[in-house]
C-alpha cells in the first residue's frame, strides 16, 4: 500500500517535471513549476521526511514561482535603451 502510494507520487513528480521542461511559454511553465513543488512535497511526506516537505511546499509552490512571475512582469514593461523604465 505504501509502495503503491510512493510509486504513484513518483510518477506524478516525473509528469510535472516533464511539464516544466517542455512548456515553452514562461507563464505556463510557472504554473507547472508550482504543481511540481506540491507534488515533490507530497512525495517527501510519503517518504517520511516532514521537515523537507515543509521547506519544499513554502519554497517550491510559493516563493520561487513568485520570483519567476515578478521577473516575467518586469521584463514586459517598456524600457528605453539605457535600461530605465518608461512611465
Amino acid at each position, binding site marked *: 500500500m505504501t509502495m503503491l502510494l510512493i510509486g504513484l507520487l513518483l510518477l506524478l513528480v516525473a509528469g510535472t517535471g516533464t511539464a516544466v521542461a517542455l512548456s515553452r511559454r514562461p507563464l505556463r511553465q510557472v504554473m507547472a513549476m508550482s504543481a511540481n513543488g506540491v507534488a515533490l512535497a507530497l512525495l517527501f511526506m510519503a517518504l517520511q521526511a516532514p521537515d523537507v516537505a515543509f521547506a519544499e511546499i513554502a519554497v517550491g509552490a510559493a*516563493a520561487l514561482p513568485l520570483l519567476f512571475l515578478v521577473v516575467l512582469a518586469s521584463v514586459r514593461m517598456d524600457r528605453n535603451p539605457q535600461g530605465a*523604465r518608461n512611465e
Partner: protein
Amino acid sequence: MSPRPRPERRIAFAIRLRLALFALAGLCALGGALHVAGRMPAFGAHPLPYGDEINRRGVPERHVTNMVSAVNFDYRGFDTLGEEFMLLCAVTGVTVLLRGTRGEARSAQPGRVEGRPILPRSEATVLLSRVLAPLILMFGLYVALHAMTTPGGGFQGGVIAATGTLLFFAGDGYRGWRRLIRSGAMDACEGSGASLYALCGFASMALGLPFLENVLPLGTPGDLFSGGLMLVENAGVALAVGGGFVVLFIEFLEETRVEPPEEAPGDAPGHATGDAPDGARS
C-alpha cells in the same frame, strides 16, 4: 554596438547539432546510468548504518527529539554554517546586481505594460489576505520555535514566515507592504542571523572547546527549550533565512516599479500622491 543578429536557419542548425550531440552523450550515459540503477541497493530494504547510529544516540546524547535538527545544528553544524553563508552571498549578489543599476530611491508607482488595464483589487482578496497573513506569520514562528521537538526548524519557519508576508502585498498593495516591511530592518535581520550562527561557534572557542561544541545546558528531551547551543543556532538560521527571502522579494518587486520623477530636494521618495489604491489609474 550590438553584434549583427544571426539568421534563423543558422540558429536552427545550431540547435539541431546541439540536440544530436546531446542525444549521443545521453545514449552513452544512459547505459552507465541503467547499469548503476540495477546495482543500487534495494529500495527501502538496505541497511542505513549512519542513520541508525544517530537515531540510537541522538536522544540520550543531545536531549532533542528531532533528529534532523540534531544533525543540522550539532552533528553536522559546520555544514549548516557553510549553507548560511552561501545564502548570504546569493542574497548579497542579488542586491548588488539589482540595486546597483536601479539606485537607492524607492518608488510606489507600478510600471505599465502596453495594452494591459490595471484592475482594482477585489474585496474578497483584501479580506482573505488580512485574515490569513498574521495566521501564517504565527505559524511560521511556531514551526521555527519547535525545532527541537517536532518537525520544524529555522529553515522551514523562516521561509514560511517570509512567504506569509507576501499576503500583505496581495491584500494591501505595494505601498501597504512596504510600509510594513522596512528594507533596512530586513537587511539587519539577515546579517544578524548569519553572524549569530558564526558567533555561536566562536563562543565555544572562547571557552577552549572546539568550534560549535555544545556548551549550554542541554535540558530534557521533549521540552521546547532543549538542545543547548542548538537553540541559538536555530534562531540565527530562522532570522537569516526569513530576512534573506524578504530581501529577495523586496529587490525583485522594486524592479516592477517606475523610476521616481526628478524631485526637488525637499521631497521624500515613495510618498503617496493621493489616497488612490495601488494600481488605480493615475
